[in-house]
């Protein structure tokens, strides 16, 4: 089965297809207006709560972790802006694939003349672009009105930040893709997914910058792929990472994105064999 599909895959699926898929996903998420508004409010509320707790901490320990108070508060607002964009909680294409596994539609997807992994990556990038615009900008604006934020003036920093967010979404996709593929073996990937959320929340720097983690836990967190989700883009935006550190940060993200994408391909190849065995 797989062999029969390969030649078609090579023919179809030019860049135009993926652009159209991503644009379709963007439009799809843009139709959930009330849900987006409600989510934006929730991100803003949490931004306020966490900003106050960070202010209290930095009031007690000015300059903690190498961040000044404005940088620390900005870190919180940016992490709220990125939470849904990089899907720290999971979701996005993951929900769709899980549903299609449940109904069996996944078998159709696997034999489409478009690359399975590339297709879902494109939908996830489209989704992320919408969430960055909708759920990223408004909470950040609210934060900027209420708090003294340290946002960069230089367009170069913003460009580096956007590139870093793109890589963050790709790393997040790679992780969620592996989680969702466990469904081929476990039949119900909810449990694995729940564990993945815990790890992602903690090791992404979402709850607390991992620069504040003690000793070995800190070095471990900095080396794991989840650091690519929140910590690195936020550090770039608040200019905690500049120059060489900025370049190594992006390289770190790129390396994990590539490694996870390759691991996903390998796992997919094994999973497809499993599907064929079951079907036959």
């Amino acid at each position, binding site marked *: 089965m797989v062999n029969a599909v390969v030649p078609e895959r090579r023919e179809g699926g030019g860049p135009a297809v993926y652009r159209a898929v991503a644009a379709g996903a963007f439009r799809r998420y843009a139709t959930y207006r*009330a849900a987006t508004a*409600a989510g934006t409010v929730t991100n803003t509320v949490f931004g306020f709560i966490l900003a106050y707790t960070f*202010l*209290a901490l930095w009031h007690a320990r000015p300059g903690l972790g190498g961040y000044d108070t404005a940088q620390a508060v900005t870190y919180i607002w940016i992490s709220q802006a990125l939470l849904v964009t990089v899907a720290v909680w999971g979701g996005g294409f993951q929900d769709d694939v899980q549903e299609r596994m449940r109904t069996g539609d996944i078998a159709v997807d696997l034999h489409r003349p478009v690359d399975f992994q590339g297709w879902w990556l494109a939908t996830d990038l489209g989704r992320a672009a919408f969430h960055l615009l909708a759920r990223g900008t408004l909470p950040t604006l609210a934060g900027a009105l209420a708090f003294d934020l340290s946002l960069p003036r230089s367009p170069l920093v913003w460009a580096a930040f956007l590139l870093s967010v793109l890589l963050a979404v790709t790393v997040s996709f790679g992780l969620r893709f592996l989680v969702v593929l466990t469904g081929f073996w476990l039949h*119900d990937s909810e449990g694995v997914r*729940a564990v993945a959320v815990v790890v992602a929340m903690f090791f992404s720097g979402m709850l607390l910058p991992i620069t504040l983690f003690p000793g070995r836990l800190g070095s471990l967190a900095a080396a794991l792929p989840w650091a690519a989700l929140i910590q690195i883009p936020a550090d770039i935006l608040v200019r905690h990472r500049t120059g060489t550190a900025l370049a190594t940060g992006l390289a770190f993200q790129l390396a994990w994105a590539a490694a996870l994408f390759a691991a996903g391909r390998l796992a997919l190849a094994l999973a497809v064999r499993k599907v064929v065995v079951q079907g036959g």
Partner: protein
Amino acid sequence: MAEQTLLLPAERPSPWTRLRGAVHAWWLMAGMWTRSSMSYRTSFTLMLAANLATTSLDFAVVVLMFRHTDTLGGWTLPELGFLYGTSAFALGTANLFVGSVDALGTRIRTGTLDTMLVRPAPALAQVCAERFSLRRLGRPVQAAAVLGWSLTTVHVHWTADRILLVPVLLACGSLIFASLFVGGATLQFWWGEAGELQHSLTYGGATVLQYPPTVFAKELVAGTVFGIPLAFVNWLPALHILGRPDPLGLPTAFQYASPVAAVLCVLAAGLLWRAGLRAYQGAGS
């Protein structure tokens, strides 16, 4: 509406009988969902472990913060443990019993709410028990552990009223959060997709209460006393138990007023639910 029609031949039951009926319906449905979730045992165990770990993360963050400081907003780690334990316990208990009400918007959209309305059991009890899951025990269990640690570590001169206030605040806090879950979900009758909005009230509220009131702006603290009455969950009674001055300078009576706030919250949530059900048009199926 539908449930009343079905009950017409008999006398209109007393509120007490109706409450017992609701609890009984909830119990039957929760039991059914528990048996069904146990059929995927590996997944259930993983989910329970993940639930325990997720809820522990907030406190892990607090502990990590205290590696860098001795006090936060002037409060010590055991004192924050008390706030964390009480807030998370109340939220977790409310979530265990009525948290499924979250999905009201989905039930309205898919028309499954109509099915519940024609069954001879109170719709609210059914909505709260549908997809009941014991893995939600993770949060109250972990919160109780932190609270237990805090109570043995914190420096408090234990008097009778302070001791009594602890179970009172846990019970009232759970009722207040349960009312917020139901009241917040009811908004989905008018604003179907906005389910996430109520998370600002419930999960957001619980996060606020995990930190001392001195951390936040006075307006926000005043809002939790006179607006959405979160302060009655733990802040106000905690001021008395831990012997802390009130940053708002309210009369002492407020520190004992949690039962009043809880009753008012339950009534308000009940009224909202009835108004929502009356405004509900049905899925037309």
